[in-house]
C-alpha cells in the first residue's frame, strides 16, 4: 500500500481508486433511498385503501388541514432543496465559505418547516383531531374520520422524523466542512446528504397534495 504514489487520505484501503469509492458511495445511497421509498410505500398503500373505502370522509376531513401552512411548508422545503444543491455546487468550485452558508440556510429552512408543522400539530391536538381512540372532534361528517388523522399523523410524523434525521446529517457535513475535510476533489458526503435531503423533500411533495388537496 505504501508504494502507491497517489493515495489520498480520504481513500479507504479496500478501494483501488477514488473513482471506485465515489461510485460505490453513490450507488449505495441510491439503494438506501429505495428502501426509504418502500418504507413510505406501506403508508401510501394504507392511504390509498382507506381513501377508497371512505371517499367522502377523506374529502371532509382534509378540509380540517390548514392549506396555507401546508403550502408554505411546500415552498420552504423546495427552497431548502435549492440551497442544498447550491452548497454542493459551491464545494465543487472549492468555495468552502459559500458551502457553509448554504448548508446553514438549508438548516434554517428545515427549522422553519418544523416550526410551521409544530403550529399545525398543536392546533390539531387542541381541537381533538387525533388518531384512533384519541379522536374527540365532532365536526367532520363521514365514516371513521379518526382513520384519516391516524394516516395524517403517521405519514407526516414519519416524514418529520426524516426531516430531523436529514438535519442531523447536514450538521455532520457542516462540521466536517468547517474542519476543512472537503475540497473540490472530495466532497462525497455532502453529495450523499444532498441526495437524502432531496428525497425528504420529494416525499413531502407527494404528501402535500394527497393530504391537503383532496377533491
Amino acid at each position, binding site marked *: 500500500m505504501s508504494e502507491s504514489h497517489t493515495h489520498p487520505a480520504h481513500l479507504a484501503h479496500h478501494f483501488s481508486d477514488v473513482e471506485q469509492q465515489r461510485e460505490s458511495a453513490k450507488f449505495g445511497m441510491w439503494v438506501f433511498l429505495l428502501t*426509504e421509498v418502500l418504507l413510505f410505500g*406501506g403508508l401510501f*398503500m394504507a392511504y390509498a385503501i382507506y381513501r377508497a373505502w*371512505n371517499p367522502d370522509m377523506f374529502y371532509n376531513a382534509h378540509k380540517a388541514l390548514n392549506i396555507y401552512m401546508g403550502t408554505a411548508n411546500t415552498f420552504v422545503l423546495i427552497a431548502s432543496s435549492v440551497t442544498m444543491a447550491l452548497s454542493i455546487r459551491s464545494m465543487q468550485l472549492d468555495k468552502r465559505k459559500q458551502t457553509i452558508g448554504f448548508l446553514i440556510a438549508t438548516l434554517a429552512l428545515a427549522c422553519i418547516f418544523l416550526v410551521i408543522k409544530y403550529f399545525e400539530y398543536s392546533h390539531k391536538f387542541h381541537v381533538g383531531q387525533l388518531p384512533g381512540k384519541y379522536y374527540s372532534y365532532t365536526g367532520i361528517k363521514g365514516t*371513521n374520520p379518526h382513520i384519516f388523522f391516524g394516516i395524517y399523523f403517521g405519514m407526516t410524523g414519519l416524514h418529520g422524523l426524516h426531516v430531523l434525521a436529514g438535519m442531523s446529517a447536514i450538521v455532520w457535513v457542516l462540521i466536517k466542512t468547517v474542519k476543512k475535510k472537503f475540497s473540490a476533489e472530495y466532497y462525497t458526503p455532502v453529495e450523499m446528504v444532498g441526495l437524502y435531503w432531496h428525497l425528504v423533500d420529494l416525499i413531502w411533495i407527494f404528501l402535500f397534495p394527497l393530504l391537503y388537496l383532496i377533491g
Partner: protein
Amino acid sequence: MSEAVAEKNYLNDPKGWKSWVFTLDHKRIGILYLASITAAFFLGGVFAVLIRLELLNPGQDLMGPDTYNQIFTLHGAVMIFLFIIPSIPAALGNFFLPLLIGAKDVAFPRLNLASYYIYVFGSMFAVYSIFTGAVDTGWTFYTPYSTETQTSVIPMTLGAFILGFSSIFTGLNFIVTIHKMRIPGMTWYKLPLFVWALYATAIIQVVATPVLGITLLLLIFERVFSVGIFNPDMGGDPVLFQHFFWFYSHPAVYIMILPGMGIISELIATFSHKKIFGYKAIAFSSLGIAFISFLVWGHHMFVSGQSELAAMIFSFLTFLVGIPSGIKVFNWITTLYKGQIHFDTPMLYALSFLFLFTIGGLTGIFLGALATDVHLHDTYFVVAHFHYVMMGGTVMAFLGGLHYWWPKMFGKMYNHFWSVIAMILVFVGFNVTFFSQFILGSQGMPRRYYNYLDQFQPLHAFSTIGSWILGAGFIIMAIYLIHSLFKGRKASDNPWGGLTFEWATGSPPPHHNFKVTPKMTHGPYDYDKVLVEQTDY
C-alpha cells in the same frame, strides 16, 4: 516476506479484544455473526425440544396452553429473525463474498459492523420480551389478537423492526459490493453462483424489509394509540395486516432459501469436480425466484376472506415459483451426472438438501393449490412443509457451507468420522421429526395446540423421538467442531480442490484476504480446463 509474517492471519492479527469488538474486517464480522446466530440457533432449538416434549403425550404434562403459546412463538421468532435470516448471508456471506470476488473487503466496512451491532441491539429487545412475559401471538403477530394480548408484543416487534435494519444494511452492502468491488476481468457470468444467490437475496432484503418495518410500526401505533387501521370495530381491516405482513414475509422465505441454494451450487460443482451444468440458468433462476417472490403473498390468505379471484391469481403465481426452483434442482442433478463425486461431509449435506428441499418444494405446490389448501391450512402439513424447506433446505445448506468452509475460516480440519455420524443423525432425526407431521397434518392435526386427540399420539411420539435424534446430532457436531479449533489437524489451503478464489489464499486468510491480488485466469467452475486435486482425505 519472512516466515513470521507469512503465518499471520486475520484471526491473530491484529491482537486484543478491542481489535475484535471494533473490527472492520468482513471476515471477523462474519465470525461474530456466526457465533451469534449459533447461540440463537441453540436457544431456538431448546424451545423446539420443549415443544416436542410437551407433545409427547396428549394433555398437559410439561406446560399449560399459555406457556405453550409463548414457547412456540419464541421458537418461531428466534429461529426466523435471529437465526435463519442472518444465518447464511450475514455469517458465511460476509466472510466469503469479498473473497469470492477477489476484493479486500465489502464496499462499506463500517456499515457492516453497524449492521452487526444493530443485530445485537435488536436481539436484546427480543430477549427482553422473553423476560417480560414473552409473546403468544405466533411469529406472525396477526391482528386483532396481537393488539389485544397482554403479553410483551411491543419489545418483540420493536426487536424485529430493528433487526430489519440490520438485514437491510447487509443487503445494501452486498449489492454495492457485487456491483463495484469485483476484480478486473470478473464479469457477471464469471461470478461464483453463491454470489449470484447473495445478490438475489440482497435485492429482496432491500426491497421487502422496509415494508416489514412500516408494518411493525403500524402494529405498534395500533397498540399504543389504537389508531384503528387494523381494528374492524374502528373501520379498520385485520386482513390488511396480513397483506402487509406477508408482502415482506413471503419474500423473506427466499431471503432464507436463496443463499442456501447458492451454497449448494458451490458444493455440487466442487465435489463433482465438474463444470456446473446450466450456469446461466441457475444464476437467472435466482433472480427469477426473487422476482416471483413478491407476487405470491396472498397464498397465506386463502381462508382469510380474500376474494376468490385474488386467491386464484395468487395460487397460479405461486405455482410459478416451482419453475425456477425446478430449474435449479434439474441443473444440480445434471451436474452430478458423470461427475467425479466425492462424498465428503459437505457433499453429504448437499445431497440431503436435494432430497429434502425437493419434498419441501413439492408439498408447497400442494399448499398453493386452492382446494387442497382449504383442507391442509393451519395443520401440521404446513408445519412439516416449511420445516422441509427451512430446515431441510436452508439449514442443511448452511451446515454444508459451514463444513465446506470451516477449514478455510479456522485453518483446522474437523474429525471426519464424527462429522459423518452427526450428519446421519441430523438427516434421520429431521425426517423422523417432520415426515410424521405431514401424515399428522393430512389427518387433521391442527398446528399451534398444546393438546391433541389420543389417535394422534403414536405419530406425535415418533416426531418427539426424532427431535431427540436431531438434538444428539447437533450436540456431537458442536463437540467435534469446537474440538477441531484446538486439536484439529491443520487444513491445507485448498482441501476440497475448489476453483473459486477463497481457495487461492491461506487457510485462514491473511488480514487483507490475499497476499497477491488474484488474477482471473479461469472461471469458477472450469474443471474441464484446470486440474486441481483434492488434498484432504
